[in-house]
């Protein structure tokens, strides 16, 4: 593709992205905001799965920690929102490093079960430690993110906060994938023994990726708390982890931007189908199954393959 066409395609994509929330209803923009939040958290899960072969069902814990830290520091301590979000990321990454170091010695199903255990423990603690989390009652009255007096207090405004962050993170992960360590990640997925023989410290790299994934989960959780202004334990149950994993698989774990497509799919489609009435859950389930069977590499993989086939002609 010529540079001019390249620029036109990107320009059109940008224009579409910028115009979309103005054309959509408030409800749809709200869904798009959630898609952005899920893209951030799901990117962490997808990167672990696609590049390291790690199935993580623990992302809801880091999402929860991010949200509760944002809530607790702002509501209980009256500190500004960046402090709460930063605290969430520090706490999440510390836990990810401490827990990840031993459990990432496992692999396959055993590792998936270990992360599931982490997810369940998190869910229980969020409920039991109600002095901090508010338990089932939750914490309300979380202030909006308002830098320099400009409050991100509507779906439209938050759309222009969350999506640039999500896209920036996608770009950073793209960079990582095409660097020394990104190559090493892809290599150890193919043959861990050969990667070790070239000097790659596989375990260390896996732990680093788990920590990075936790940071993304926590950031998404913090943004979520400031967006909905109310957090309760229901938002951080194990089914949230499954949603993140689902969107990663649907979007495609071998492309960096796949999770964005997966996130749009799982947020927009159920709502859109709900007009069909009671049957919508079945239709959504059928769509999921069809997507997984027909597009084993997810939407991202399918688009990439189509693009490559076209370029080869």
């Amino acid at each position, binding site marked *: 593709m010529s540079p001019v066409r390249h620029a036109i395609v990107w320009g059109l994509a940008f224009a579409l992205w910028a115009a979309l929330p103005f054309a959509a209803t408030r409800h749809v923009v709200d869904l798009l905001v959630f898609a952005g939040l899920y893209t951030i958290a799901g990117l962490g899960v997808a990167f672990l799965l696609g590049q390291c072969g790690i199935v993580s069902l623990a992302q809801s814990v880091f999402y929860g920690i991010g949200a509760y830290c944002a809530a607790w520091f702002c509501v209980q301590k009256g500190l500004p929102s960046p402090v709460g979000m930063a605290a969430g990321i520090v706490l999440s990454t510390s836990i990810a490093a401490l827990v990840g170091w031993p459990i990432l010695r496992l692999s396959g199903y055993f590792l998936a079960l270990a992360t599931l255990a982490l997810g369940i423990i998190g869910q229980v603690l969020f409920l039991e430690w109600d002095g901090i989390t508010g338990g089932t009652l939750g914490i309300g009255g979380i202030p909006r993110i308002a830098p320099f007096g400009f409050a991100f207090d509507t779906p439209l405004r938050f759309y222009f906060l969350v999506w640039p962050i999500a896209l920036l993170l996608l770009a*950073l*992960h793209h*960079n*990582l994938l*095409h*660097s*020394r*360590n*990104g*190559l*090493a990640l*892809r*290599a150890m*997925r*193919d*043959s861990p*023994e*050969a*990667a*070790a*023989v*070239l*000097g*790659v*410290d*596989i375990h260390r*790299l896996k732990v*680093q*990726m788990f920590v*990075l994934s936790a940071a993304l989960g926590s950031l998404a959780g913090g943004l979520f708390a400031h967006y909905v202004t109310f957090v309760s334990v229901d938002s951080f149950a194990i089914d949230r982890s499954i949603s993140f994993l689902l969107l990663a698989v649907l979007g495609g774990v071998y492309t960096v931007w796949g999770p964005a497509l997966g996130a749009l799919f799982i947020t927009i489609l159920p709502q859109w189908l709900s007009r069909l009435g009671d049957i919508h859950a079945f239709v959504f389930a059928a769509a999921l199954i069809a997507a997984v069977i027909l597009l084993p590499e997810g939407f991202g993989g399918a688009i990439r393959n189509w693009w490559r086939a076209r370029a080869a002609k």
Partner: protein
Amino acid sequence: MTTAQTTKPLLQVAKISHSFGGLHVLRGVDFGVSAGSITGLIGPNGAGKSTLFNIISGFLTPQHGSVQFDGRDITRDPVQTRARAGLVRTFQTPKVFAKLSVRENLMLGCYRHLSSGVGGNMLRSRRSRLEIEQMQAQAAETGERFGLGDVMERPAGQVPAGRQRIVELARGCVTAPRLLMLDEPSSGLNTTEIEQLRELLRQLNSEGITIVLVSHDMRLVDVASRVHVLCFGSIIASGAMEQIKRDERVREAYLGI
């Protein structure tokens, strides 16, 4: 060669014993590899060659004995630590990164010499970009040298099996190893290719790479200046190939007389 190098071998394996369950695979194996040499390791099937290779490269910790590399005890070091010190091996069944292109496979050979972190990589730091350029340059040069120019962009898993072995060897050379350990490098190659491999090993050796070679193939082992014969977990003979061929015990072990 200086006196220091001759007195202190690059690799020293001392009193290595290892058993799997009740099966004694290695029984007190001792041998040294002097810097700048080509050393052959031969022996019948089940002699313990692969186990010994795994112990030297770090995939297995021996129950007894020690491995020293460049005067340092590495018996308990993990694989990647040994690799970073310059001890690099290939595998009997070539292990290429199947989904990565041949170019990317070769690029990874540079890994041990580079140091950029995950954060710098994400931000495309100056170092991160320079490293990629360096990796690409090395890969292109080595690919050309090993005659892989026509398959550089192909996924390595789709390259014919014989050439995967060459990819693996080339990748090992990009690491600029101090000691290169080759496990059956000639299997699956025809006579002409074995001849080319011999020439290549000589060349690499003349560039200062010490080589240890496990092979069944006498046409290839000839290239070694010193050969150790492993039989039922013990070294039964050591010396130049000509000497080995005349050894009574070796003839017995191989020919079963």
